[in-house]
């Protein structure tokens, strides 16, 4: 069974068609890199998966559950799909530890001790156990994003969604985040990543999707399609991001 399945999915914002009858199946352990010019619909595609954007046509199945099944089902989907945002979106009133422990406690119903233990374990994984008691404002952008990854992992998702996770970071801070993502991929996590990091796509991605005008224009092996882009628009796009 595929982890994520788009069936003829469309998304309109008023008259604007952002996703145009998209069909897409993503299997376990795939690392799908989504690229495309701005406005091509890649972020929207990602945000439809956990229902942050409501689809307006077709159907979208995540781990056997339709996003159109109502609030309760949508919450189940969200517990199986961890999300990492461009702007980190850590809860500023909590410490790093509390940010990570929040999901397990509030969503999975773990006890304080259990959720804190889980949070420490995950902060260790992203190399930030020593910052457990820091407020997000006392962390660098790269550190904040790693905490955000730990927070998303804390609810034991089946698939991780990354929405331009390094776009808000200085070049020297991008690498620490990309390293954590690479490690996740190596552990077999299914990942869907919107990014402009072509080196990441090439070395970690198992599949590359190029989007244009709300449609999937190219879908193939990252190394192959980056080395020899199958159409001029993608060639053009790659020239700009590389």
């Amino acid at each position, binding site marked *: 069974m595929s982890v994520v399945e788009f069936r003829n999915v469309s998304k309109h914002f008023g008259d604007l068609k952002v996703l145009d009858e998209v069909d897409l199946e993503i299997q376990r352990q795939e690392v799908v890199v989504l690229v495309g010019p701005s406005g091509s619909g890649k972020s929207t595609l990602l945000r439809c998966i956990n229902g942050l954007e409501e689809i307006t046509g077709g159907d979208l199945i995540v781990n056997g559950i339709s996003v159109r099944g109502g609030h309760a089902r949508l919450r*189940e989907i*969200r517990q199986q799909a961890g999300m990492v*945002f461009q702007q980190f979106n*850590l809860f500023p009133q909590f410490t790093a530890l509390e940010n990570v422990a929040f999901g397990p406690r509030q*969503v999975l119903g773990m006890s304080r001790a259990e959720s804190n233990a889980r949070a420490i374990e995950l902060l260790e994984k992203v190399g930030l156990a020593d910052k457990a008691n820091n407020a997000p404002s006392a962390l660098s952008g790269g550190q904040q994003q790693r905490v955000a990854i730990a927070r*998303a992992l804390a609810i034991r998702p089946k698939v991780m969604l990354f929405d331009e996770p390094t776009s808000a970071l200085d070049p020297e801070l991008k690498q620490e985040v990309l390293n954590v993502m690479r490690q996740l991929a190596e552990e077999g996590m299914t990942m869907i990543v919107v990014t402009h990091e072509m080196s990441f796509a090439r070395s970690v991605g198992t599949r590359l999707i190029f989007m244009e005008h709300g449609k999937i224009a190219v879908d193939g092996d990252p190394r192959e399609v980056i080395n020899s882009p199958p159409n001029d628009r993608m060639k053009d796009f790659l020239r700009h991001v590389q």
Partner: protein
Amino acid sequence: MDVQWSIIIDFIPQLLAGAQITLYITVLGLIGGIIVGTIAGLMRAYGGLFLNAIAFTYIEIIRGTPIIVQVMFIYFALPVLADLRIPGMTAAILAIVINAGAYIAEIVRGSVLSIGRGLSEAGLALGLPRWKVITHIVGPLAFRRLIPPLGNQCIVSLKDTSLFIVIGVGELTRTGQEIMAANFRAVEIWTAVAILYLIMTGTLSLILRMIEKRMRIL
């Protein structure tokens, strides 16, 4: 000019009794106002078309009319319309509740909307129900931003109780007026009344500043 500050001493108990009533109306009125305002503000921020329209209409009617007209309406017009007599004290408290409620609703709405959408999305993406996102994430953050404007409204409402002189509630201003009518000591009495208001609003400011400090406003 004959000013005798010492005469104030004789009237201190009477003025303090007035101040007590002022505080009573203010505290009860503000508790109600905060409840009404929070509900109306959340209706504005999160409600659908219908709830939003109700809250919007309430806020616009109250903000668009003077509080003195509102209390007169409650005290004199409502009995005619609905055939129920409302004691002056109740009318005074009710007037603060609905008046402060309208302004607090806008304060609540503003604070809630000032919390970035990204934080709500981060909460929702974890699988939290919407109400938990409001109570655990947006609420506590919005509350910190709400304190300064809410403090303003508390002080305004406390002073607004002086207008209830028109329905004969024996609060501080009314008490001063009554004393003055008997002895014509305008300078002494109105000075004493003003100082009592300053003490009350000053204490309120101090409490608010303490809360603000403890909460380290974000």
